[in-house]
């Protein structure tokens, strides 16, 4: 019975989370133009609840990695992600952030998932705004199901903690 209540509670919380994603745009390159287009009234990402770009990682729970990530930026990106509030989600916006794109060389990181776990990848160079909205809807489904990377990690940590307490 208790389990039923907590899982329902979790569902309700996830429902709330998926419609109030606070995005932190980590914008490094040309994809930023398309990000602006998604954020601006024509495509209007606010319709999906991802209304405010937050320019402090501590106030956001959706990291949008928009553009090429270089090896030199790796530590900064990792740090931003570490500072974000739990539970948090990550979208890799464009092929550069997903795989490195056409930069297969000394300076570009082969995908932002080398340093932070990515929930949704958006292909395209740059992606169309529709693709971004599609990705956002996919992410919302994921949030509702509770299987984003950080949600799974939190659940696992909780179970491990409970197991440790039971042993004592």
């Amino acid at each position, binding site marked *: 019975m208790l389990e039923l209540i907590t899982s329902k509670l979790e569902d309700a919380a996830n429902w709330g989370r998926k419609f109030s994603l606070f995005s932190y745009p980590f914008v490094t390159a040309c994809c930023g133009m398309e990000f602006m287009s998604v954020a601006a009234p024509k495509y209007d990402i606010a319709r999906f609840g991802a209304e405010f770009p937050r320019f402090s990682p501590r106030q956001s729970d959706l990291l949008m990695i928009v553009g090429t990530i270089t*090896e030199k930026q*790796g530590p900064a990106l990792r740090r931003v992600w570490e500072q974000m509030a739990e539970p948090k989600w990550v979208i890799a916006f464009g092929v550069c952030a997903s795989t490195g794109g056409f930069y297969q060389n000394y300076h570009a990181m082969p995908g932002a998932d*080398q*340093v932070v776990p990515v929930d949704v990848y958006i292909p395209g160079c740059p992606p169309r705004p529709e693709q971004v909205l599609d990705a956002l809807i996919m992410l919302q489904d994921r949030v509702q199901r509770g299987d984003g990377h950080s949600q799974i990690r939190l659940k696992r940590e909780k179970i491990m903690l409970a197991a440790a307490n039971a042993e004592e």
Partner: protein
Amino acid sequence: MAQKVVDAVKAKFGDAVVATSSEHGDEVITVKRDKLLAIAAFLKDDPAMSFEVPVFVTAIDLAHWQPLGRRGAPDEGTRPAYDAEASDGLRFEVCYQLRSLKHRHRLRVKVQLKETDTKLPSLTPLWAGFNWQERETFDMYGIRFDGHPDLRRIYLYDEFVGYPLRKDYPKDKRQPLVRRPDLVGDH
């Protein structure tokens, strides 16, 4: 247009000018390394030259070099592809582009360097604008500018080993600073 500049440098420095050419309307002179500072000072300070604007400095790695537009076609002999023995160890060309707003002429000054000895006097004391560009050239090609006030890497991080724009740097070699612990760790 800048032919008179080339002639003046040749008249003043004679042997120090190794070669001259004209590429797409730009005059190019190749000078000896030990005369570079003197020639640069002349180009900057002489009233008939007055090159005030340091446009850019970069380097060219001549390994496997082919003249532009002739890739794949037989080399017409303007310059052979890189061969350490045949080219006497010559490997790099450092290239300074200068411009004079007063006389509205421009000039490219080149210095050739050996693979084993990539030192060159810095022109930053003459044109402060070359400061970061010489650092970039050092960063990418490992050309060492003697007398540069602060010769450090500018784009890449200090942990980086090697010089990525040299032709012998493997094109897919990466030198990561961080990776996800759960990818490489024990999860």
